[in-house]
Structures are given as C-alpha cells and as structure tokens.
C-alpha cells in the first residue's frame, strides 16, 4: 500500500458507528466503478486470493447482491441489499450473512454479532485522488448486539493502522515463535 494514502478507522461509541476513511490514488469515476461493478467486487470483497462468486447482482435500490465464498471447502453466503444510490457520490447498503436463497442469517462466528449492518459510503475526489468515508452501524439491533459490536469495534480501533503500542510489538514477537 502507498503509505501516503490516508487510512483511518474510528468508532463512535454513542452512535454505535464505525467510520473508515480511505484514500485511493485514482479518479472518482474509476473508484466508483470498482465499488459497483460485480466483476470488480468479486475481486476485492473476499479475502486475498479467494475471489467470491457473484450469485445475484441487482444494482438498484432494494436490489440484492448475493455472493458465495468457499471457506475450507464449505460454502458460505453473504449479501448486500442496496438502499440509496447517487452515482459517484453516495452508496448505501445493508450487509448481512445469508443462506443460498438470500435469506438473512446470523453470523456463523458469533450469535451476538448484529444481524444487519447499515453502510453508507460517501465518495469525493480531490487532486485526482478519491476519498471514501464508510460508516457502518447495526440495524434494529438489540442492546446485547450493540454492546458486542461496540466492544469489537473499540478493540479494532485501538489496533488499527499505525498505533503501534507495546502490546502490539509484543504480539508481533509472539507470532514469530
């Protein structure tokens, strides 16, 4: 990654909202395309080297983007349901885990993880660089889900991009063992 590119992660405890700001070294038109064309999404939404399979793609308000990923030989599904779309300005969608029919399911890794996350991505361009501001917040979540989301996000924020604490250094040395 180009270290000149802005990359920030923060969490608003009161609003239960994650905010990620990331700069890309490309024009808005191109970044928008990469976020909204299924052939591109397939190549970056999943883990490196494991492109996701686009099962269904309806890029319109209330439209669904259903994808599958094969993790250790097992297929899992996820989806976006698009909300507002303003070309090259704003993209809103709800993300969740899904079954093969597009029905929302609980996160496989933890039952307290919120069922649905509402995401808004704001795009802007300056000096031929594009900045996205992504905000994610649980939708219709219970107190317990909100609490879980906060703890998780708070912990991630502390470790994200750059803040090199003693603990992280220590963990690095552990990994080498």
């Amino acid at each position, binding site marked *: *990654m180009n270290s000149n590119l802005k990359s920030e*992660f923060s969490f608003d405890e009161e609003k239960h909202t994650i905010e990620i700001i990331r700069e890309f070294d*490309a024009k808005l038109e191109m*970044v928008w395309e990469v976020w909204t064309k299924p052939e591109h999404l397939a*190549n970056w939404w999943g883990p490196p080297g494991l492109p996701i399979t686009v099962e269904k793609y309806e890029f319109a308000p209330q439209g669904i983007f259903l994808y599958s990923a094969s993790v250790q030989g097992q297929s899992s599904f996820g989806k976006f349901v698009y909300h507002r779309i303003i070309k090259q300005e704003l993209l809103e969608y709800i993300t969740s885990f899904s079954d093969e029919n597009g029905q929302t399911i609980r996160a496989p890794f933890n039952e307290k993880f919120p069922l649905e996350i509402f995401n808004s991505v704001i795009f802007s361009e300056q000096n031929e660089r594009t900045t996205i501001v992504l905000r994610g917040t649980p939708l219709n979540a219970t107190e317990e889900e909100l609490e879980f989301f906060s*703890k*998780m996000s708070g912990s991630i924020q502390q470790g994200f991009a750059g803040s090199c604490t003693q603990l992280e250094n*220590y963990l690095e040395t552990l990994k080498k063992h």
Partner: protein
Amino acid sequence: MKARRDIFQAVADPTRRAIISLIALQAMTPNAIAEQFNTSRQAVSKHLQILTECELLTQKQQGREIYYQLEINKMKEIDQWLNQFRKIWEDRFNQIDDILLKLKNKTNE
C-alpha cells in the same frame, strides 16, 4: 457458568492493555503493577480482577507473594480474532488499490 465478561472488554481498555504489556515481560505482584500507574491501587486491582475473569491472567503463589502472569495462548486467541476483522478491511483496500492500478495501466496502454 462462564463469567459474563468477555475478552473484548478486557482489551478495549487502555489501562488493561498497559497491564497486559507489563506482565507480558515478567510475572508481577499486584503492588509492583500498581506502582506503575497513577490510578489508585483499588482501580488497578479491579482491572486485574477483570483480566483474571477473562482468563487472560492467572495467579501463582511464590513464597508469601501472589504473582500475576499472562496466559499467552488466550492472548493469541484474541489477537487472531481481532486481526481477522482489522485485516478484512485492510485486505479489501489493498485489493482495491491493485485493481485501480491495473485499470489505470490499461487505460494508459
């Protein structure tokens, strides 16, 4: 029944992270830990209790003193879990960078 506390609560607090860092280097007595902080002994003791309930610290008796030591495996477990989430986004952005670079090269051809 398992303690209500979970490991995210343990590592989300800056003082507790500092305590973990300290104990990672060597097992320490509660007094020695408390001396490192400006907060009250009671406050530090509360943090130690939370970390113990989360199974991140264990106590061992040595002579007349109680020492706290870090449970390294538990620590690795948390780290893997959080890193997964942090990494998911870092990986996505890096992949976007790659795609953008390819697209730019293509349009320049």
